[in-house]
């Protein structure tokens, strides 16, 4: 009896969940489908079965030089993430393992810098970039994204490092391990998962950042966000091509995102929800 009810419950829940999920996922699904259509097919009205042509993908590569913005996105998001890790790992490490009375205040202050609205400093940043020749350079954008994501990186690493038991360090020290040995043999293996999660989440954030990447670039350093935004002008309005470019732009990050669901919650809530 109870078993029958639970099966029915499961059937209802499954049906409802799949309907909701398909509705939410539909715009992405339809973009992928449209990217496999020809241009006339794409505007012919609702149709879920494309002719499976790769024409638009080819056109996006040949006519619009898709590879350049793609590489810009890769260089900028990976570069800014590595740079942020380089600066943040020592900071998070020292706050997690030798906290002082001010550690909490420093963490809070770092978080507060994240709350400054980007648009409020658009003018000075734009002028500084213009005057130093950083406008539309990969280097300038990498620095920019490093700075805006640094607080999140420090915070995430801190919440991971804090969970490494300090006693292990003491034990290693008692056994006569030097600082270098301690770091290489004891701490690093325990810290790697946390660092990897932070890396993953930060690449996602940097890849999708759509204010500075659009405003501080024009052509040379324009990453995918700016490239796609350029499709908003009517001349660029070719739906199968837009869909192909969009699919290529979101695919790598979508797949990375699926693997980082748990870290996402933790990272974006600054450890407040685990």
């Amino acid at each position, binding site marked *: 009896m109870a078993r029958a009810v639970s099966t029915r419950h499961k059937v209802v829940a*499954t049906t409802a969940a799949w309907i909701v999920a398909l509705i939410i996922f539909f715009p992405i699904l339809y973009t992928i489908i449209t990217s496999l259509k020809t241009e006339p097919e794409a505007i012919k009205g609702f149709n879920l079965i494309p002719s499976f042509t790769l024409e638009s993908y080819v056109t996006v590569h040949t006519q619009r030089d898709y590879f350049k913005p793609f590489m810009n996105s890769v260089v900028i998001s990976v570069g800014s993430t590595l740079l942020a890790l380089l600066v943040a790992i020592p900071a998070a490490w020292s706050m997690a393992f030798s906290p002082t009375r001010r550690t909490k205040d420093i963490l809070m202050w770092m978080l507060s810098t994240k709350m400054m609205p980007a648009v409020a400093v658009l003018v000075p940043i734009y002028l500084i970039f213009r005057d130093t020749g950083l406008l539309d350079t990969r280097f300038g954008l990498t620095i920019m994204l490093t700075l805006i994501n640094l607080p999140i990186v420090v915070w995430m690493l801190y919440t991971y490092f804090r969970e490494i038991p300090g006693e292990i360090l003491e034990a290693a020290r008692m056994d006569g391990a030097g600082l270098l040995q301690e770091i290489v043999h004891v701490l690093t293996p325990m810290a790697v998962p946390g660092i990897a999660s932070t890396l993953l989440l930060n690449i996602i954030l940097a890849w999708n950042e759509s204010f500075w990447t659009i405003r501080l670039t024009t052509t040379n350093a324009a990453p995918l966000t700016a490239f796609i935004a350029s499709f908003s002008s009517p001349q660029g309005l070719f739906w199968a091509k837009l869909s192909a470019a969009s699919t290529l732009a979101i695919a790598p990050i979508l797949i990375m*995102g699926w693997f980082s669901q748990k870290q996402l919650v933790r990272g974006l809530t600054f450890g407040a929800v685990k």
Partner: protein
Amino acid sequence: MATENTRGLARLMLTPSVGLLLIWMIVPLAMTLWFSFQNYNLLNPANVSWAGLFNYQYFYTDPAFFQSIWNTLLIVGGVLLITVVGGIAIALLLDQPMWGQGIVRIMIISPFFVMPPVAALVWKNMIMHPGYGVLADINRALGFQPIDWFAQFPLLSIIIIVAWQWLPFATLILLTALQSLDGEQKEAAEMDGAGFVSRFIYLTLPHLSRAITVVILIQTIFLLGVYAEILVTTNGGPGYASTNLAFLIYRTALLGYDVGGASAGGIIAVILANIVAIFLMRAVGKNLDK
């Protein structure tokens, strides 16, 4: 001695991060504040003069200013309403036993990873387009006139797109919180004859309150700065109908070349964001003490 050493080393390790953020926070903000008191137009950069409070006055008396503040609040409020209510509902649904939960989760979380320009352009062209969009097709199939979303309901259209992007975030966080709810408590309530509704109101909702607070506060920070979605869909129009504060400042600065006016707007945006930030810091800070 050793502790002295460690402490010195710890400080040294902390310095680059703190230093960089300190520069990042102080220099541009100080420049914005300074510019906000200047007559400074990029078309006439040789002619910069002290303006006093003129820029603020100018911004304050511009009818677009109040509309943009109102639009900013509508975007934040509208998206929060949709994502929090929808997020709770979907999280409750996902918490049930079902087949294929992994795939369902992946589909629901996906919009969060779509970059804003893609999300906005896909919705604008493939979903909401009055001629060829899917919604227009559905309308026609049902015998209605298709809706020209961005002309008739520009702000609502943007709210829908942004809500679609943030719904996964709310759902994921609320689901995480939901799954930490003690199963025994739930069973006990069930045994005592508490129905679904009373279980939800007296047990689940209080348990979720903290996660809901976090969702509201974090989303608000990002939602105050919605930009790319407006840029690629309505470009702030028609008129100022879908211009929020961030977009108005961008317009003043890079389309109007008015450094002073844009800076005054920037300072107002900072004040607005700070009011929100104070609440967020308090919520996150409490967790740190635990």
